[in-house]
């Protein structure tokens, strides 16, 4: 049996029609008018021990809802979930003991306290024995470079420092599984790299199973072996990162600097995706026009100062996939926010 099994999980939310004022709030106690929104629609996947899985999808796709069900916070409407042969929403406390969570948007630190006091608190909460606690702490302090801010109150820390401390908290009790919900949100490049390095290291050294949601495709590209992509509650793709690229990356990107600022390739096979003065970023599909032909065409018809070609990054691919979908259902994407 796989370490995590998610079988045919469906999650519906009732969206109550709100009423105003005191009488309205009392009324809504009894009132049963609601719409049903299906946040997760028949999802199944398996994750083995020690895997590092990127779980991606646009806002409102059902990522957080799935994670919350795996954490035991939410109950599926139907279907079942097993994590390490436990049902998280039934054996919630046993499951929580072996699990670590980081919600990038929220902190599990205490605003006015030094970071080290927070570690002490979680040590008591998870009943971590003294020796193991010290080992882990010195390992994390080293790996995350936390020495310099260990004694400072949390309110004085930068976002990156807080995220590092949060990661350490989530891993202090040697969990088997760690869920990271947007762990690099709002961080600068250096901080992001540090976090990514840490996540990889933890996964490699301790065989911790990691499920990571993110909107930053560099996160996925740099650390994940496997990608699960979800859209409007259903799985769009589940497989290795390489296969994903082979399957969806059929194009390439040309960055061209024209000598004339107003120049613009008017051939419909060129799709201009970004314009910065004379510099244009153009997306082409291999099926429509091959690289040599595209370059020849551009050079012949325009005065070009500079030109570069690159394979699209996964970010572009995902953006295309998201966009393709939102074209079909523009209103739903706009109306439904992330569910947290």
């Amino acid at each position: 049996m796989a370490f995590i099994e998610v079988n045919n999980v469906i999650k519906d939310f009732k969206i109550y029609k709100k009423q105003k004022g005191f009488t309205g709030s009392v009324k809504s106690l009894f009132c049963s008018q609601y719409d049903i929104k299906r946040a997760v629609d028949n999802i199944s996947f398996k994750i083995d021990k020690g895997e590092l899985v990127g779980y991606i999808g646009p806002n409102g796709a059902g990522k957080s809802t799935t994670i919350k069900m795996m954490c035991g916070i939410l109950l599926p409407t139907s279907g079942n979930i097993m994590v390490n042969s436990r049902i998280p929403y039934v054996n919630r406390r046993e499951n929580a003991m072996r699990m670590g969570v980081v919600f990038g948007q929220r902190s599990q630190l205490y605003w006015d306290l030094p970071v080290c006091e927070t570690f002490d608190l979680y040590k008591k909460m998870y009943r971590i024995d003294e020796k193991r606690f010290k080992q882990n702490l010195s390992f994390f302090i080293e790996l995350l470079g936390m020495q310099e801010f260990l004694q400072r109150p949390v309110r004085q820390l930068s976002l990156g420092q807080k995220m590092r401390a949060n990661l350490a908290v989530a891993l202090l009790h040697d969990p088997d599984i760690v869920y990271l919900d947007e762990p690099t949100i709002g961080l600068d490049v250096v901080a992001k790299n540090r976090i990514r390095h840490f996540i990889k290291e933890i996964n490699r050294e301790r065989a911790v199973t990691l499920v990571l949601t993110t909107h930053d495709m560099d996160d996925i590209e740099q650390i994940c072996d496997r990608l699960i992509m979800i859209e409007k509650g259903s799985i769009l793709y589940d497989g290795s990162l390489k296969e994903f690229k082979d399957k969806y990356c059929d194009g390439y990107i040309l960055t061209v600097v024209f000598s004339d600022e107003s120049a613009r390739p008017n051939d419909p096979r060129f799709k201009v995706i970004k314009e910065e003065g004379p510099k244009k970023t153009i997306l082409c599909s291999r099926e429509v026009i091959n690289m040599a032909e595209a370059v020849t065409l551009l050079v012949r018809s325009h005065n070009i100062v500079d030109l570069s070609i690159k394979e699209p990054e996964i970010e572009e691919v995902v953006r295309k996939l998201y966009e393709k979908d939102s074209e079909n259902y523009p209103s739903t994407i706009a109306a439904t926010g992330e569910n947290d």
Partner: protein
Amino acid sequence: MYYFLLYLNFIKINLQSIFEYRKAFWYGQVCMITSYVTDIALIWVLISRFKTINGWGPYEIMFLYALNLCAYSIAGVLLRKPTIALPSMIQSGEFDDILIRPLNPFFYTITREAAMYFSQLTVSAVTLTICIMKLQLTINPASVGMLILVIISGALIQGAIDLFAAIPAFWLIKSDSIKDLLIGDIRSFTRYPISIYNRSVQVFLTLIVPYAFISFYPAQFFLKKNDFIMFHPVFQYLTPAIGIILIVLAYKFWNAGVRHYNSTGS
């Protein structure tokens, strides 16, 4: 034991947080004490004008007030902050953080929001002591034991009411209106002996929102009164039973709320 140790730890943490802002802490304490002293002074002005209200002398009414404030501040230490915080925790999804921990959500919520209401506790203890002296109430192990029992049970009743006011937030997300009604408006009836009110108010404060069991009925026992309005004198001994029943009901209600949260989220 585990929760108790954790609780002490959270108290330590919260005190540390409070002491980070020393001036704000002292301002807060001074304001609180001033507000309660003003409150007491106002009641005092009123009752000393009338000499007695429905057979209750000034110190007897103060005793009633102090008994109520004692229960209110003890319940406050354990439950006021968590019950006030609950709606916003549910609204912001912060309640998720409670559920990802390997702890009982009820005890964890209480533990994590541990608070110390020094000023309320001080004001109520001082007022209660003054009243006991002035009224020359008998002080022996039995009466002191009974007083402690009544105060603790009263705190359970008050705590249960706090919980009943906050828990609907699991369904409504916001339950401020219920809280204001139960803890603000209705509670202010208990400043005076409820025998001065209309019958329907007496029934309401006895059977529906049983504030009368926190101070009015047990006070009859200590003051050797016989002012049971339409109810039986046995009511003076019922406070502990009512306290336990209510807190158990509140806990069940809480669990129902958490189950609802499990199926709906924030």
